[in-house]
């Protein structure tokens, strides 16, 4: 489950994270990962802090955050269900399962259910192509999905 700190101390935590990782060569991506781990997304308030500490412009930092699919600008639902949409999963009926997941949750990809329970996201390859279709629910992998397994995953996520 995605449970994260309240965002009151964004600046303070950002400073601490940047301080810890600044010594790395090319530290920006590791910093953004750490920030997203901490808050569940990359809060806008953290960007000027990162920019200042790394001697970058805010635009540069914002450009990086928005370039990569992983970084969220808003918090996700309590659970994140990622369905693989790539070719190997397509060959085993992945598209049908994706439609089913959308219908069960009543949302499209990149959306969160109104109760904040589940965010549905596409992923392009989990490297489980020999046992497709596959999915990831809150970091846990599931392969050889069928309707029953998908329904169970969705039910688990909705709780």
């Amino acid at each position: 489950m995605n449970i994260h700190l309240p965002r009151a101390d964004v600046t303070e935590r950002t400073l601490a994270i940047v301080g810890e990782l600044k010594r790395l060569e090319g530290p920006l991506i590791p910093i953004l990962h750490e920030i997203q781990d901490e808050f569940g997304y990359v809060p806008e308030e953290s960007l000027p802090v990162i920019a200042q500490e790394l001697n970058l412009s805010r635009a540069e930092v914002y450009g990086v955050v928005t370039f990569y699919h992983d970084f969220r600008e808003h918090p996700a639902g309590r659970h994140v269900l990622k369905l693989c949409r790539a070719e190997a999963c397509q060959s085993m009926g992945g598209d049908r399962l994706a439609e089913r997941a959308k219908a069960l949750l009543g949302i499209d990809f990149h959306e969160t259910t109104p109760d904040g329970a589940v965010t549905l996201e596409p992923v392009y390859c989990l490297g489980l192509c020999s046992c497709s279709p596959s999915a990831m629910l809150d970091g846990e992998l599931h392969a050889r999905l069928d309707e029953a397994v998908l329904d169970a995953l969705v039910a688990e996520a909705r709780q």
Partner: protein
Amino acid sequence: MTVRIFIPRDAAALALGAESVVEAISGEIAARALDATIVRNGSRGMHWLEPLVEIETADGRVAYGPVKAGDVASLFDAGLTSGGAHPLCLGKTEEIPFLKRQTRLTFARCGVIDPLSLDDYRAHGGLRGLERAVVMQPAAIVAEVTESGLRGRGGAGFPTGIKWKTVLETPGARKYIVCNADEGDSGTFADRMIMEGDPFVLIEGMAIAGIATGATKGYIYTRSEYPHAIAVMSAAVEIARAAGVLGTSVLGSAHAFDMEVRTGAGAYVCGEETSLLNSLEGKRGLVRAKPPLPAHKGLFDRPTVINNVISLASVPVILDKGAGYYRDFGMGRSRGTIPLQIAGNVRHGGLFETAFGLTLGEIVDEIGGGTASGRPVKAVQVGGPLGAYFPRALFDTPFDYEAFAARDGLIGHAGIVVFDDTADMLKQARFAMEFCAIESCGKCTPCRIGSIRGVEVADAIAAGIEPEKNRVLLADLCNTMKFGSLCALGGFTPYPVMSAMTHFPEDFSPVPMVEAAE
């Protein structure tokens, strides 16, 4: 003697319930007070049999699979710990035809050893290549790799030794070895399996590359979609550092080499080497124009070797057994072995390492066993989302860089995705364009705009709007993308599109919709 029970920690096994099998087996060991221990190995690559449980017997390892938690009690009743008979018993692991038919050089230890035991690694021939490299002249190491005929396994097939030679000969106060572990192609999982199943072989290969070129720092750039690989790889780096395999004195020599594992952030284009370098530097993953080559000006503008995981992981065996040993496998200019990744709608999916030269038909029909659905094979996409779709008519194509290129295809990272006759090739062509549109870094116009126009044209064909004219337009657009794009993303997206249109024209001539009568 304590019986060793092997249960993979590979992501595929985990995704198929390996954790609950471990729990059940631990429970039975305790309940029955048996003298047995569980080893978490990598995967043998027979993914249709995962989770594959193996028992070490005096006679060799015996395999059971696919095992579900519910099968565990009956397995113990049947005498699992002594390799007893059971409906799930597959006999000796090494005798399973899928495994027996392989030539495992790069994946020799994968699935066999405990991936995080350096002792296990050494006991199975690990570190011999590096031990040899530390006492060799850099130029001699480079010559050995060149001599082996090893070509880049990421897809481009550039001779690894030539790349290393360029970096060796480029002066620089600091040089880098960057391992491209951003395995984003659908249908591929070889990099993931090596990182999860035999991470030390990659560390050893990178250390050899460092010594050969004068680089002292390495980065493994992998994907956030691979959390298990990241965990195993990071732990292995720590272990290697503590054991003196990495650090200021590699294996007690005067050579220094250390490395870090870095995680990407969900951008497919970062598998392109120059985009990857930008990402490592903390920038947007925009593709760089070449020249300058990364070998001259790579990471932080320093001379940089950037190689795929499998290229680097193949180096230790070359140094250990000699260039000739490796070169003697294969055909034509494709030397050595290639880990085929058989995926999609296929009965026996998994990793099959073999010398180059098997035909596509042998791979799909004999080794893969045809489709999982039991329906006829319609198309096979080789080389990931940028690879061509081959029909049965091209099943005589041998697995070789040049042979695939001669038929307007590519072997890429050797991912093979099988589709049965329910596949709609116009839809697959549209997806190729859509994927390019989603993942384009945006730097060059043919890729950024071309892919979006490509989706629209494919939709027009599907809707029956001037299909003939739109097919010509799609071919023209592909031509522009192929020759006008900066990197392989835009440049190779035409492969799946054009191959689908060329080999499956019937799917591009949908029955026109009947106009509603007034």
